[in-house]
């Protein structure tokens, strides 16, 4: 009956258990197979069970030590002497309370296979998600890279260019000052700064004139074509 309850996995196991319970000894299998196979028979150490004078301690007397009155020792006695030790075989299995404790412990510490597989799947899923997210991030950043590189290069070029321009402008100003004053003026002196301010003013005036001219041209230009067309 226990055998039938175990066989929930495959039919093979069912047959296997039934087969072994009625299987023959080794030698007959040998003779059936046809060829002679010598098997060194395993010589076990003789079991000294001492069945002639079994020592069964007296539970009631006070002289017997405590450890000989425990359930564990009773089981060992039964294991050694069998029914010759007057022990109720039903006490070998755990009682109902002990069984409840065992079941609770097993439920807590030994989850069934389905639960474990689910946990493993969840963990794997988490890991793959993490990995995929990381890879996505990497890919996105790498896609941005050419543009970022080009931007940076452009920035660098522009700053270089600006510096060059700045230098050229300063050199021009120095030359201008040299011409005006006749000697090399220190760029930090107030004279130089006044000269720079003057030049800037003149440039501004020029720009304003240019703008006005452009505006006038633009006003003239759209007026004349409609006049011409009409």
């Amino acid at each position: 009956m226990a055998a039938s309850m175990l066989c929930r996995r495959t039919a093979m196991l069912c047959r296997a258990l039934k087969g072994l319970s009625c299987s023959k000894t080794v030698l007959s299998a040998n003779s059936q197979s046809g060829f002679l196979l010598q098997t060194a028979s395993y010589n076990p150490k003789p079991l000294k069970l001492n069945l002639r004078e079994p020592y069964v301690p007296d539970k009631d007397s006070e002289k017997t030590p405590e450890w000989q009155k425990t359930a564990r020792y009773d089981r060992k006695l039964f294991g050694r002497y069998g029914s010759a030790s007057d022990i109720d075989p039903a006490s070998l299995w755990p009682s109902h309370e002990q069984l409840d404790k065992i079941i609770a412990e097993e439920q807590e510490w030994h989850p069934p296979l389905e639960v474990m597989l689910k946990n493993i799947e969840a963990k794997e899923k988490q890991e793959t998600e993490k990995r995929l997210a990381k890879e996505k991030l990497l890919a996105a950043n790498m896609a941005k890279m050419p543009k970022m590189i080009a931007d940076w290069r452009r920035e660098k070029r522009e700053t270089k260019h600006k510096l060059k321009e700045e230098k050229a402008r300063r050199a021009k100003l120095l030359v201008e000052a040299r011409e005006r004053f006749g000697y090399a003026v220190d760029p930090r002196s107030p004279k130089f700064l006044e000269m720079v301010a003057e030049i800037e003013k003149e440039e501004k005036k020029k720009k304003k004139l240019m703008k006005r001219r452009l505006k006038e041209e633009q006003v003239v230009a759209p007026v004349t074509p409609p006049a011409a067309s009409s």
Partner: protein
Amino acid sequence: MSFPKKPGGKALDVLQNLPRITLANLRPEPGARKTLHKQHGGNRSGRGHKGERQRGNRPRLGFEGGQTPFYLAIPKYGYNEGHSRRPQYQPLSLKRLQYLIDLGRVDPTQPIDLTQLVNARGVTIQPLKRDYGVQLVDEGADIFASKINIEVQRASEGAVAAIERNGGVITTGFYDPISLGILIKPVPFFLRGQPIPKRMLPGEDMVPYYTDAENRGYLADPEKIQQARLALAKKYGYILPDISKDELYHMLAMRKDVRQIFFGLAPGWVVSMPEKKILKTTDEKLLKYYSS
């Protein structure tokens, strides 16, 4: 008429009649070996000339005269961290397995289990030293030639291929430490008078290994195992023999249930050695527990 003398003569007689040569019967020719005697005497009793050597004040092992010694200069790294918590598997080479089968210590006409291997003294397992069983190693895969039904705890791919190439069956099964202790020493366990416990399932870290058909795990799908057998045969380049046509098919198909420790014995039974009887409980609660 003198008969032709036997070549060898008395020496041959001696050789044929005296017992076999062992280390106990041999002795070197006198004068061949010079015994090395201990040091005795000498002006300074073999201690050298002055200094720490003669005065017996040498520093501790590993000291390098003040230079940072090797064992302190090398930085720490957790190579051996948690080594005592790692499961260990005693290796069993196919060469040794073939040796045991040839000498008749292991019977190939019955399923080979860890109990059989330990009975044959082929391997020694120490469950208290974090041994979780035996692993098959593919040393000797080229000379292996026996058709067996073997159950180990771990197996390399080459070993699996070698066994299946010869028409055998290999399974990897997990035994928790208590079950392992019972498996390797069944008789002392039966003398304890306890009911046979049920085998626990592997921990979460080992479940993927035992549910994988590539490793022929005992929790894996039988169809996937068949597919894996064919794939392995293709990979290693041999024709997979059809075991269903074998005369020993019934024996080769024997496999233990997930909760079973011994073939033919179910959890919850008590084996009584003196009377050669098996006791089974009839309590439903106990039966339900032991068959879950």
